[in-house]
């Protein structure tokens, strides 16, 4: 594994170890990641790509944070 990477979460630079999942970085920061259709806060739940509760916007596209490895310069939009 190479050294730490820096990603942008809601425009704010955040350092993370290379190779870890975006879901683990977001969850450690703040567990609420998105809102349900009814507007309730939701966060990482199954952690293995099945439940889609951790879907956030990564470089403009919806992705499951638990399956997405962090990359340098990745721009992530999640709940503030």
């Amino acid at each position: 594994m190479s050294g730490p990477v820096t990603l942008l979460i809601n425009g704010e630079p955040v350092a993370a170890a290379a190779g870890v999942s975006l879901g683990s970085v977001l969850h450690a920061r703040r567990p609420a990641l998105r809102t349900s259709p009814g507007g309730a806060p939701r966060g990482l739940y199954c952690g293995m790509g099945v439940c889609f509760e951790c879907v956030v916007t990564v470089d403009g596209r919806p992705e499951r944070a638990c399956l997405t490895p962090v990359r340098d310069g990745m721009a992530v939009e999640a709940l503030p």
Partner: protein
Amino acid sequence: MSASRIACDVLVVGAGPAGLAAAAAARECGADVVCLDLFAAAGGQYHMQPAVADGPFAAAPQVAEGRAAADRCRALGVRFVLGAEVFWAEPGFTVFARRGDEGLAIRATTVVAATGAMERPIPFDGWTLPGVVAAGAAQRLVKANGAAPGRKVVLAGSGPFLLAVAETFAKAGLGLRAFVELRRPGPGALAPFLRHPGRLAEAARLLAALRRTAPVRLAGHAVIEALGDGRVEAVRVAPVGPGGRPRRERAFLIEDVDCLCVGYGFRPVIDLTSLLHAEHRFDDRLGGWHCAVDPATQETDVPGLFAAGETTGIGGAAPARLGGRLAGLGAARAAGRPVPPAGDLAATRRALEKARDFAAALAALYPFPGGLVGELSPAGTVCRCEDVTRADVEAAIAEGARDVFSVKMWTRAGMGPCQGRVCGPALGDLVAARLGLSPEAAGYNRPHMPLRPVPLAVAEAALALAEPVHPAAAGAEP
């Protein structure tokens, strides 16, 4: 959008213990084998590979065994397609998958479904609060990512996997605020080990790790509510009465909590096998709905479709590896490759029977508490994707819904991105209990295109590569 066509004798879907064993066995017979998995590293959940190379799990036996099994497959010439997710399949077989922006159409003579397991959740009040995670998710955070799920963690639910999660916390040097197990240890707890004394050391190791990491251990208790403003902050726990129901009048709060990990065991992932119309049966002891196979060959009732591991009923890694080997040999044979010596097969079948026997004895200690979903309040969420509450489900039943499928039509429960994988089992339990039906009569959600959300352009590109199944139909194309 790019798309690729891949052809092989045997396609193995899933690179966990069962899939890796199947792929190696089929390749040993000379079959051209492709092994596909959703994750970027082979190994599945059991052999999950840590992203952080210097963590406490890098040298763990489960990690090393998984790496060795994948390396062996590579050395044999198995072609891995990793980071790919199946979204559709056609009989005969063409399996369609998405790998990033790429669509894949994989043509295979035979298929081994080794699609593994997922949580079998029991909805409770507040289970949708951020910070409430599945027990498996907590383990993945710690083991694969070197992250702490929280600083003040309650681990709750039932079953042997909770002990494995507690051990993961212990190994990482993380404490647990409390450990809550539904079952009380009884005199029968030793029964599985009388016939399988080799597994006793493992059990003792797990219990020692639990004592080390969780100073507060509550047996015979259940979490009935997670509370908090925007995230979990407290957990309501109640002792369980003799009938298995939590005694609410004696409930108490565990406060100062920032993460609740809950697990009641697993269910087979059956979307691929049910999509291909294999027979499925219900058995609570095997995680509910599972794919039926001929135990001698692991073949389903669909010729050329084999299944192994958790897909055929929850039993853990040992039966998965053995069933995987049988499935791989069977799939190679069905694809026209030479038959291995019969002695090998007989020994593998005996070992599989023994491994299944231990899994069944262990499962008998932790009968699935499906009735707990009855504790959910009317405003409690059943389907997380579509925000469908228990009251919505009950209203649908009152209006005439008579099985899981009709409740879905009435309420949208199971129509969201997870396609009912998360709420399905609880929905089945609610419908069966309310109407006095068998689980078979309550039924389960059938898979639809696409099995998992996929960008339309990727799906289109992959499907365009399908070879026409009926030449006449191809001729009818404009």
